[in-house]
């Protein structure tokens, strides 16, 4: 295929993915808006007032970046895992497999679709946060870089999950038993400096810590970890998972008999 045709094919997947999550917005865009508003009200407003300051900011301000990241992570992952598994389940993946479109374009298309939803929800949650607190970007470029990379990373994660999934249960396991605990323990609600040395060390193995803190640094200018290290960690993980997903597609795992 020519570059132009590749671009058309890529755009086709992205349009299809965006149309999908917009069509089912009560399942894709509304729930994170509601959940995050509840977080803002309960943790930020009600409980947060008693907690006082964290990292030099009032609690509401402190948790907002983490909550935005949490929704970006969940929605990027969720979009690709359910959409790609859905195409496998309905066999409409065959529409792509019979076409001359290379695997790389399929992979990039779904990643872009997941990022579109993740970033869209991130934006919605950010706007909602403005009703509760003020946000100013300390380092806009870092904020954007971290959120874009994180969204890409978890889109790829969702893709890999969908490749291996053979039934609907399989697409709920990772989000429930891995993503959610890692996110809650990823410094969304607290500074890991509050932990004992041991648990602090353990937390440093949690990749989400780097993303939440990278983003928080971008917005508030404070971070528990070295920001450069954060960015490098996220970028390397993204690259590694990308190659793995591409290789799985190439092998036809879970797709071609």
């Amino acid at each position: 295929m020519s570059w132009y045709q590749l671009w058309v094919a890529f755009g086709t997947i992205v349009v299809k993915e965006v149309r999908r999550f917009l069509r089912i917005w009560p399942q894709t865009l509304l729930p994170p808006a509601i959940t995050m508003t509840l977080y803002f009200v309960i943790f930020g407003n009600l409980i947060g007032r008693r907690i006082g300051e964290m990292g030099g900011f009032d609690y509401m301000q402190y948790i907002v970046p983490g909550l935005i990241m949490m929704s970006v992570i969940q929605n990027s992952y969720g979009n690709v895992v359910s959409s790609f598994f859905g195409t496998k389940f309905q066999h409409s993946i065959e529409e792509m497999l019979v076409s001359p479109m290379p695997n790389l374009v399929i992979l990039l298309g779904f990643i872009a679709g997941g990022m579109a939803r993740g970033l869209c929800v991130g934006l919605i949650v950010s706007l909602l946060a403005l009703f509760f607190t003020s946000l100013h970007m300390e380092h806009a470029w870092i904020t954007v870089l971290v959120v874009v990379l994180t969204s890409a990373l978890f889109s790829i994660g969702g893709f890999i999950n969908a490749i291996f999934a053979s039934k609907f249960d399989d697409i709920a396991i990772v989000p429930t038993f891995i993503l959610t605990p890692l996110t809650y323990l990823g410094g969304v609600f607290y500074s890991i400096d509050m932990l004992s040395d041991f648990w602090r060390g353990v937390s440093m193995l949690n990749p989400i810590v780097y993303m939440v803190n990278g983003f928080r640094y971008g917005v508030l200018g404070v971070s528990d970890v070295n920001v450069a290290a954060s960015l490098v960690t996220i970028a390397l993980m993204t690259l590694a998972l990308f190659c793995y997903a591409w290789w799985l597609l190439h092998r036809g795992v879970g797709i071609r008999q």
Partner: protein
Amino acid sequence: MTALSIDNLRKTYKGGVQALRGISLEVEKGDFFALLGPNGAGKSTAIGIICSLVNKTSGQVKVAGYCLDRERAQVRRQIGLVPQEFNFNQFEKVFDILVTQAGFYGIPAWIARERAEHYLRRLGLWEKRDNAARTLSGGMKRRLMIARALVHEPEVLILDEPTAGVDIELRRSMWEFLSELNRRGKTIILTTHYLEEAESLCRGIAIIDHGVIVENTNVRALLEKLQVETLVLDLAQPLSQAPEIGEFSIHLRDPRTLEVEVPRGTPINEIFLELARHEIPVMSLRNKTNRLEELFMRLVEQNLPGEQY
């Protein structure tokens, strides 16, 4: 020029089922070709391999001269597939399904929209363009898949049991549509269980059974192979024993039904003379089955399963 050439193609699924045991096949450009075979013969597997949905175990496939191993993209561009099972996104709109499929082939939306309209109109689905695919009837879904297979204007159209679950009227109009496409030069390959379909539509034919091609010829030559026809006579009165009539092999299927095997080129007058002499009135006369069906059964019986089954 060959549209499709398959050489010694084998497929063993995980779990050990040998779906194809070395099939070879050629389909000429412009042919209307039937791949016939009973359930589980390996038809869909062969098509799956040609269309990149199934990985082959060994063997060679060429489409319009392009090799499946080395020129995958070109091979895929040449083929339009109408699969056996519905495989579109049930929630998408009919029109979007076509435009999206064209997009996967790199066809920009403004061209794809024109083509989608053209094919939806030709297949009588234009009124349904804004409906979600799941709201279509079974026959409409089948036609949707035909339109989708044509939207990138392939050289070869492959249909896996296109008329399964389609009523007679729609089947006829589908046949007409396919014949028209074929007249305009498109190579068409279809699999079917309906032998009538192969007989009335197709020129080339291959019969596959248990992963082996048992016959590969053209429909006319195949029919000529049929040396014996069986006539079924319904009698007015019950008989206890079949009468003897010259050289014909006769047997009594039940007291009121006689079956007579007639070798090709033999006049059947003698049968009636003899029956009249025995005072056996005949009420009606018919052919036992579709002739092709008979031949098909015979070929398939000769190829009874080997040790693998």
